[in-house]
């Protein structure tokens, strides 16, 4: 078949994108939207190393790693959406100098090959020292951010604008549902930085096709280590005329000047050399002996490996001695920003940062767009990790997708009953900003929107109007109050991390009960998210309304009535 890899890569990229689109609210069933992330061998090895346990969730990554013993870096050639994306965008940035058999032969373009191994060594060094930096190198984490945090929001913006332009036409055509359709436009912090990194990876293709895959990708390096002598090998028959076509076309420059030989650790088994050979002299075959030359690989050199390892350890040391490091030795009260609110179900902070691979899947899935990557607020160890920004969006009562889509369990997957007891913070009133406290105005918004009935208005002698107080044992920290507070700029009621519950395991319900919390979501959907999609703590909606107390006593009538 011609262009075998084009078919496979189209299918895998499409599957990747569909799964990413499915990472949303509502999410029906458990469609394994994080599958691709869990296939990344670097994620598997890295998160297991840094957290000191073998994580069940990332076993697919180990399977991919073991598969390299059989079929080499086929994952890179057929599955990895990063490679496909580089090729897609790389069409716009072809190599600056035309590829020839001479320039693309392995011997001519091996100058940077060892970088990926050194990169991997450095990341491993950091992981051994207990710091996860794998998000700088994981191709799946990066590509998920490119699509989820950069292209997806752009897509929502373009679609919404197109709908706006097309709406009058839709009315003319009688397509009212389309005319009234609205696509919420998503926004994300740090998106420009993702663009810079992605741009660098893609633009590097000007130097060599798939520069990233050849020279930089630490996951590719891991697979390369396992594919030094794969079972499936490239075999060239005596029909070969040494025309050099395969050497020229090889996307990773894995074929040597002598086209009979190649470097398996660099070959992504894309099958192109088989397809283009005019003599049909090339095929992949199991178990053929490798010609002697093929076993030899780049010599990393003890010095290089050592230096990379030291760089990794050093980086870990720098992270560990950063002021905001959550597990800093001897620090009883780690310095943490008061508004660094983690998603419900996030592991205790040090474990959370070790597990989180900054893929942005939770942020892509978050229906209220409240989950955002942080820049330096969480310190060096917390770069790009997810945080709630309640002023922008609040945590929806009926939603638990962030935990359900997390590939490494940095955010635990909780059912709604558990999630609605997972306290993420507590609201507090900034009295000098509050319309009631400061200006003695009549405003009840924080109370009205609170799904947990955690805001109480009480009369005090200094004010005409009753003033708001937060009942901290009822407040879960969802941030609806902060989100809807009508003052301009920063809210007069804000969520901070006081009272958050972070459990590595065990029940949030039990812990909340132990702490005497009375977290109870009312039948209230200021979040405008569907009910009844999942099991809910709220009373189910029935045709006949539940019984209420008998008519309210006089004086409690709504202000709309004039009682003489």
């Amino acid at each position: 078949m011609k262009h075998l890899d084009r078919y496979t890569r189209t299918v895998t990229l499409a599957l990747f994108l569909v799964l990413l689109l499915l990472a949303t609210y509502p999410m029906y069933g458990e469609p394994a939207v994080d599958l691709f992330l869990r296939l990344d061998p670097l994620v598997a090895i890295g998160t297991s190393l840094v957290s000191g346990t073998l994580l069940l969730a990332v076993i697919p990554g180990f399977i991919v790693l073991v598969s390299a013993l059989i079929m080499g870096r086929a994952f890179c050639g057929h599955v990895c959406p990063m490679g496909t994306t580089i090729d897609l965008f790389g069409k716009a940035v072809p190599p600056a100098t035309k590829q020839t058999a001479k320039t693309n032969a392995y011997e001519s373009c091996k100058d940077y090959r060892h970088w990926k191994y050194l990169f991997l060594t450095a990341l491993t060094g950091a992981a051994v020292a207990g710091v996860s930096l794998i998000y700088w190198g994981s191709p799946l984490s990066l590509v998920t951010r490119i699509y989820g945090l950069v292209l997806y929001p752009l897509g929502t913006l373009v679609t919404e604008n197109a709908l706006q332009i097309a709406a009058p036409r839709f009315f003319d055509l009688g397509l009212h549902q389309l005319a009234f359709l609205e696509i919420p436009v998503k926004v994300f912090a740090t998106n420009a930085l993702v663009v810079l990194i992605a741009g660098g990876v893609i633009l590097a293709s000007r130097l060599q096709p798939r520069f990233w895959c050849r020279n930089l990708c630490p996951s590719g390096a891991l697979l390369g280590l396992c594919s030094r002598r794969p079972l499936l090998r490239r075999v060239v028959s005596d029909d070969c005329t040494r025309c050099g076509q395969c050497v020229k076309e090889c996307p990773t420059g894995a074929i040597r000047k002598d086209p009979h030989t190649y470097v398996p650790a660099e070959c992504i088994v894309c099958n192109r050399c088989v397809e283009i050979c005019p003599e049909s002299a090339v095929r992949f075959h199991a178990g053929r002996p490798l010609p002697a030359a093929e076993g030899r690989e780049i010599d990393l050199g003890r010095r290089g490996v050592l230096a990379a390892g030291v760089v990794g350890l050093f980086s870990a040391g720098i992270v560990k001695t950063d002021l905001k490091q959550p597990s800093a030795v001897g620090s009883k009260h780690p310095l943490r920003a008061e508004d660094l609110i983690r998603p419900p179900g996030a592991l205790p902070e040090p474990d959370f940062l070790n597990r989180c691979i900054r893929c942005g899947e939770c942020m892509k899935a978050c229906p209220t767009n409240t989950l955002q990557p942080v820049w330096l607020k969480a310190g060096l160890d917390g770069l790009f990790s997810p945080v709630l920004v309640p002023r922008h969006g609040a945590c929806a009562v009926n939603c638990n997708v962030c935990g359900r889509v997390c590939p490494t369990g940095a955010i635990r997957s909780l059912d709604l009953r558990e999630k609605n007891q997972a306290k993420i913070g507590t609201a507090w009133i900034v009295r000098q900003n509050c319309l009631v406290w400061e200006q003695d105005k009549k405003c009840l918004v924080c109370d009205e929107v609170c799904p947990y009935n955690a805001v109480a208005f009480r009369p005090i002698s200094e004010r005409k109007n009753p003033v708001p107080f937060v009942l901290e044992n009822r407040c879960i920290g969802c941030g609806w109050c902060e989100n809807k507070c009508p003052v301009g700029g920063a809210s007069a009621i804000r969520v901070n991390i006081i009272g958050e519950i972070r459990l590595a395991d065990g029940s949030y319900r039990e812990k909340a009960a132990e702490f005497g919390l009375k977290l109870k979501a009312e039948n209230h959907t200021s979040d405008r998210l569907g009910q009844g999609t999942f099991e809910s703590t709220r009373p189910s909606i029935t045709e006949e309304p539940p019984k209420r107390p008998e008519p309210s006593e006089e004086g409690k009538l709504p202000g709309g009535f004039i009682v003489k």
Partner: protein
Amino acid sequence: MDFKTDRREFLGKGLAAAGAVLTGAHSGLLGAPAALAAKYPDIAIARGSEIDAMTRAAVDAIGGMKRFVKPGAKVVIKPNMSFARGVGSGSNTNPEVVASVAQMCSEAGASQILVLDNVLHSPEDCLSMSKIPEMCGPVPKTSVSNVRSKRMFREVKVPKGVEFKSMEVISQVLDSDVLIAVPVGKSHGSAGVSLSMKGMMGLIYDRGSFHRRYNLHEAIVDMVTILKPDLVVTDGTRILSEGGPGGPGKVIPLNLVIASDDMVAADAQMVELGTWYGKKFKADQVRHIRIAAERGLGRADISALSVKDFSI
């Protein structure tokens, strides 16, 4: 609503004249508009159990849908469908009443019938649980939509406004020929009751400021100086007597449908027919109804109006 013609004014004058006729000021010198309007009662109350038949009878009693909807007219129907609750909860208009009104519009030759609201709960759940799209589905030229996006709204001046001088209204409402309110009779924690006038808040963009910035009761009346329905069909099959607007709360079956071309009269009639928070109220005990009558937007003095109250 077409603001370019004086149809509204025409109807208003006709109504005032009709009022004069019924209160004994008949002089025989009234012109044709008054004579036309006087043919019909101010308010019709149809009682029974067949919802479609009651709705049709009530509208027919005040002249039938052809009086309001001319062939080719673009119609907007404003029901209550803001809450993800079932039909029995009384938080949303009975879907059969809405479908019946839409069907009558279609029969009268309407070219487009939009059933619109800016809902409070999840739009998908509101639409499905209210059953309004389901019931309106078979009606020709009819679509049911939630409207939320800012771009669907357009600013309109409110020259007679006391609390505010402009507001943003769904463009399709401003561009329509006929506006029909189809509220359910329900209580409201702030306004006392939520009927045709209060219900118009589902057609504007920023209703939050009604509660926060303005005097709610005056603001409702400011709004209906512009969003004045041509026809009101009030669902009194059952009312949410307390716990409104969202419920859950006490639901009382009244088994009736009210129709009127006067929004104030229709709301006043519903107030007096119902029981609210365990009490009976006169229409002028509801602030926004009283203010609307005082500002000349309609009549709240039911006893002075002609009411056709009948069973089918």
